[in-house]
C-alpha cells in the first residue's frame, strides 16, 4: 500500500484540536482505565487496556505522518478492533481523558486513508443509499410495519402505527436489525408505545437510529446521516426523537 502523505498530514492537522493535543500529551499510560473496559474484563491483555488505543495516534503525530503502511494498518486494527467507544474508560481515567474521542479521531484518519473496514464500509454505503444500514427498502419497511401492526391488533384492537404524521409528539426510530431480522421487536415497540398512549409517528424515509458514519469515524457521512433523521423530525414538527437501544 502506498500512502498519500498529503492527505495524511492534512487529516492529522484537521484532527489536532485542543483536546486531542492535550490528551495525547498527558496520557501517562497508568493503566487505570483498564478497570472500565469490557474488552479488558473479558481478556486482560495489554492491547485491551484503553490507553493502548492511544498509542498508534501518538506515534503518528510524533512522526508527523512520515510512517509506513504497517503503522496505519495497526492503527486501523487497534482502533476498530478493540474498542466500541462506550466511554467507560473516561470515567476511570484520573486525568479524565476522552479515550473514545481519540479512537474516533484515529478512525477518522483510517477513513481518510481509505482504510475503513469492508463490512463497516458496506453498511455505511447502505445507510447513505437506503437510509438504513441493512439496505431495507421503503416497501419492505412499510410492509413489515403493516404486518406487525396487524398481528398486534389481534390482541390490541386499538393499536395504531402512524406513518409520516405531522405534529406528533415523538418520532420513533429503530435499529435496522429489528426491522430486517427480528420483527417481533417492532411488535413489542408498537405494543409498548400504544399501551403508553403517547402521540407518536414513524417516518417512511428516516427510521434508522444508528449512525455508522459516527461509528466509522467519518464525520462528513455521520453528519449526512444525522441530518437525514433530524431534518425529518423538523419537517414532521415532532417535539422529540426516540432512538432505539
Amino acid at each position, binding site marked *: 500500500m502506498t500512502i498519500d502523505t498529503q492527505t495524511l498530514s492534512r487529516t492529522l492537522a484537521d484532527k489536532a484540536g*485542543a483536546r486531542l493535543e492535550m490528551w495525547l500529551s498527558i496520557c501517562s499510560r*497508568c*493503566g487505570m482505565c483498564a478497570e472500565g473496559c469490557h474488552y479488558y474484563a473479558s481478556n*486482560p491483555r495489554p492491547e485491551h487496556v484503553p490507553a493502548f488505543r492511544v498509542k498508534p495516534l501518538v506515534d503518528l503525530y510524533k512522526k508527523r505522518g512520515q510512517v509506513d503502511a504497517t503503522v496505519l494498518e495497526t492503527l486501523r486494527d487497534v482502533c476498530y478492533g478493540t474498542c466500541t467507544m462506550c466511554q467507560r474508560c473516561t*470515567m*476511570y481515567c484520573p486525568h479524565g*481523558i*476522552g479515550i473514545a474521542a481519540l479512537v474516533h479521531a484515529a478512525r477518522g484518519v483510517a477513513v481518510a486513508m481509505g482504510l475503513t473496514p469492508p463490512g463497516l464500509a458496506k453498511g455505511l454505503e447502505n445507510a447513505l443509499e437506503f437510509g438504513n444500514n441493512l439496505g431495507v427498502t421503503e416497501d419492505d419497511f412499510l410492509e413489515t410495519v403493516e404486518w406487525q401492526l396487524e398481528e398486534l391488533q389481534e390482541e390490541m384492537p386499538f393499536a395504531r402505527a402512524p406513518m409520516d404524521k405531522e405534529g406528533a409528539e415523538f418520532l420513533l426510530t429503530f435499529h435496522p436489525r429489528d426491522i430486517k431480522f427480528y420483527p417481533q421487536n417492532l411488535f413489542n415497540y408498537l405494543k409498548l408505545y400504544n399501551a403508553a398512549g403517547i402521540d407518536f409517528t414513524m417516518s417512511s424515509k428516516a427510521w434508522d437510529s444508528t449512525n455508522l458514519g459516527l461509528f466509522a469515524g467519518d464525520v462528513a457521512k455521520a453528519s449526512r446521516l444525522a441530518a437525514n433523521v433530524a431534518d425529518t423530525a423538523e419537517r414532521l414538527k415532532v417535539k422529540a426523537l426516540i432512538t432505539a437501544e
Partner: protein
Amino acid sequence: MIHVVYNFAVGPMVWLAFTICITGLAYRLIRYRRKAVAAKKGLPGDFRTTWAVRSMLYYLLPLNRTAKSSPWSTVAGFALHIPLLVVAFFLSAHVIMLEQSWGVAWPTIPDVWADVLTIIALAALGFLALKRLLHPALRGLTEPKDLLVLLLVALPLLTGLAAHRQWGDYPLMLTLHVLSANILLMLIPFTKLSHMALFFVSRAATGSDFGKRQVGAW
C-alpha cells in the same frame, strides 16, 4: 570545580528552569484556549462550570470510582504528590534560600518531617515503577520513557534526602540535587508532567461533558 557547578545551578540555572517551566506551561494553556475558542466559534456556550469544578474536586480528593477500582495506585498517587509539593514548598532549606534572595518567607515544616515525607514519596515512586514492571498488562503498555519520568522525579528527592542526611559527599549531593531539580522543572512542560497544569483543564472539559449528560462528574 564542584563549587562552580553549584553556583551556576543555584544561580542562573534556577532562573532558566523556572522561566522554562512557567512559560512552557503558560504556552500550553494559551494554545489550548486558542484552539478551543476557534473550534467553538459561532456555537452557543455550553460549559458547565459547577460540574467542571466538582470533577476536579472529586479527583483532587480520593472521592472517585478510580480510588475504589485501583486503591493501591490511588494511595501511591497521593503518597507521591502530597509529600512532593509539601517538601518542595515548606522545607526550611528551600524557604531560607528564598528569604535570602528575595526576603520573602513562610512557615516551614520540621526537617524530620521532610525526611519522612521524602521517604514516603520515594516508596510511592518505587511502587509505581514496580507495578509497571510486574503487572502483566501494564508491562505490555509501558514504554521506557514511562520509567524515565519516574526516575526524573525520584532523583531530586533521593539526592535531597542524601544531602540532608549527609550521605556520601555533601557538596556533590547538594549540587546533584539542585541540578536534577532544575532539569525536572525544565522538562515539565514537554513531558507527561505537563499534567501539572493540564490535569485541571482536562478534568474541567470532561466534567463539563459529563454534566451535559447528567451523569456523575467523577
